[in-house]
């Protein structure tokens, strides 16, 4: 039985940031017997108990009102939980987590002050700039649309590196303090990441976002929950993790992406034309991802660090039963972080 002052909420996870790599791809889901409704239920079913434990959420969705963008679902959830938490009930002295929305240049240019102000108590927008990606002053471009077409290579190149910097900063955490005002604010790094779906072609960066986020998690030993039974990037990563030793999954290799996503080939070539602000290229990132996946495949409990056993991870990597996947993720989070049950 819980202690009287922590029955339904706690501050056990107040410094934890749980990241969702989740995207809606209609055909992938319908082929597996589910739809947007199921994905939303899955995400909210995980998010709500986490918020009540004080954990915050990271989701890199846009601010456009469109089908399959879960930003507003999460914001509405957080707003409702905060309102419930404001009534000074028995255990409402614990803070409810919030949303961290990491956004890279130039995408943050479309976020208006009105949008940010409206949700300021639920969400912290973290703008990742070209400077933070390592670009020098003479390499930095203006706001979206302000540069001429002759700069299109530079736009593609800078955008890709800023996206990569955003994913690194999300994993590591960052300092948002305002020294002049004596105000300290730190954004925690990701404590666990949940991967489901995800685009594997037609993306804008060095590699599919889900792949790069997974690579950061594997590098840093961040608990990783990969749901492989719902198509997209999650399925490709699962295939790699479950492949026999020596076998390759083409969709995890640079050659495949160079053919299928022309921007990637372009960025790789531009690495020979422009100064690189960081020491990697698309090709080197794919190589590193391949090695990380190979290493991880040897021992899931150790490499994925997610509190699940080898068999439970294999199930999570393959199941197309969204309720079973949710149960496994919750079980792993409970065990991994020694939380009291993620009561809802």
């Amino acid at each position, binding site marked *: 039985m819980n202690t009287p002052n922590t029955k*339904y909420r706690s501050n056990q996870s107040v410094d934890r940031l749980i990241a969702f790599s989740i995207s809606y791809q209609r055909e992938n889901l319908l*082929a597996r*017997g589910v739809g947007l409704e199921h994905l939303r*239920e899955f995400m909210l079913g995980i998010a709500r108990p986490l918020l009540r434990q004080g954990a915050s959420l990271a989701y890199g969705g846009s601010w456009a009102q469109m089908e399959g963008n879960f930003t507003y679902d999460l914001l509405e959830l957080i707003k409702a939980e905060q309102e*419930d938490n404001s*009534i000074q009930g028995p255990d409402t002295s614990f803070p409810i987590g919030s949303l961290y929305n990491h956004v890279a240049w130039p995408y943050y240019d479309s976020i208006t002050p009105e949008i940010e102000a409206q949700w300021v108590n639920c969400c912290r927008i973290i703008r990742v700039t070209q400077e933070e990606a390592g670009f020098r002053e003479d390499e930095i471009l203006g706001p979206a649309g302000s540069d001429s077409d002759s700069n299109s290579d530079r736009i593609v190149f800078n955008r890709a590196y800023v996206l990569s910097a955003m994913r690194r900063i999300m994993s590591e955490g960052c300092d948002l303090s305002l020294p002049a005002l004596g105000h300290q604010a730190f954004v925690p790094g990701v404590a666990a990441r949940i991967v489901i779906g995800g685009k594997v072609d037609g993306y804008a960066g060095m590699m599919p976002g889900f792949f790069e986020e997974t690579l950061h998690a594997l590098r840093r030993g961040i608990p990783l929950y990969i749901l492989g039974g719902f198509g997209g990037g999650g399925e490709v990563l699962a295939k790699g993790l479950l492949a026999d030793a020596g076998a390759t999954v083409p969709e995890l290799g640079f050659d495949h992406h160079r053919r299928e996503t022309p921007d990637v080939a372009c960025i790789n070539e531009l690495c020979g034309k422009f100064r690189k602000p960081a020491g990697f290229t698309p090709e080197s990132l794919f190589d590193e991802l391949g090695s990380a996946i190979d290493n991880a495949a040897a021992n899931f409990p150790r490499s994925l660090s997610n509190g699940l056993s080898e068999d439970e991870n294999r199930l999570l990597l393959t199941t*197309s039963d969204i*309720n079973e996947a949710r149960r496994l993720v919750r079980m792993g989070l409970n065990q991994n972080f020694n939380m009291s049950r993620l009561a*809802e």
Partner: protein
Amino acid sequence: MTATTPIPEVYILWHSDCQLGELFAKRIHAWLRPGNGLGPEVFYRCLPAPGETERGLPLPIPGESRGTSRFAHSSTNLQILIPLIDANLIADSLWREWLKKLADVESLIALPVALDATAYNVAGGLRSLNFLRPAGLPLAADPKPEMLEAAVRSMLKQLTESLCRLMLHRGQVQTGGTDMAGPKLKIFLSHAKVDGVEPARRLRDYIYSKTQLAAFFDENDIAYGRSFAEIIETDLAAHETAAMIAVRSSMYASRPWCRRELSLFRRPRRLTDDSELVQRWQLHPTLVVDALTADGETLGIPELGNAPCLRWESLPDREEVVITSLLRDVMLASFHTALGSAAAKHATAGSVVINWLPDPLSIMHIPEARQVGGDFEVVYPGRGLSGVELDILWETFPHITFRSFDDILS
């Protein structure tokens, strides 16, 4: 024929070229799962399964001999198939044969929906079933939103009634693709004679003219001298009265017999005896029809608890909306009673499993809840209450921990 307590999951099937299919499927999903994890699981079958050819079949339905049953929920024992049948499906020989085969699956109950007249050309056992026939179909090529909405509402009404009848006949479920029939559900219409008769009469007339339900309208239905309490008790014990509509007019709160009816009906009933370590309790659903007038004031009615409420004056097609909403709640209550049986097996000794979303007054009827000390758990449907509801329950019952079915079963 098998005799079981049905805990269903629903599979909606439509051809990938069917324009209306996805919209109808999403509306069925939203209708059957109205809250946080309430209601049966609903899955789709439309696009070819992974690994199939471009025109291949969707994933199999659990129980189908084609293979895996990996989508079956661990707590379910009945699959309800809702094929949305149109010309695209009928003209596709692969899908036609698939549907024919599904009709023979022992564990499936099919509720076919005719989206156009060709649906009745379906092959095999489904042909003999009573199809759901949404009004206004087939729609014109570019239908007006209100035409589309009317068709959806008509489908949901018919579907709700079928599912409701199916769920209430626990232990009498016939499987194997055959049609469902059984005794009529009874709706109790509680109203004040002085100012609530008009909505109640209209609802009664609608029930008898447009549905296969029965109404209990005390102006006609109580034999002279017979105790009202006795009638309600008898009906509830016999599982006859399925639900109550309380017509909340201005005078309703001040009429002692109205309050008595409501109080009796909103009293949970224990389903288990003293020998069982986990108690199970059941509450039949109540829907409040708000018929208050603009002038004057009325008292609050604590017995209503968290019963849902619809405003009579503002509703279009008000009788249909009220009755269909109530039937959905009846179906959900029955489903949650059945799922509660499964949850009880996972609950700790001394727990109380209920089939409704708890509020302070309904929980107060459980004797253990009124006793000081002796911590125990109440297990309720869905995936969890809002924070404020949990806080209010905690303050009222500090010795009770409230946990959801999902928390217990996962």
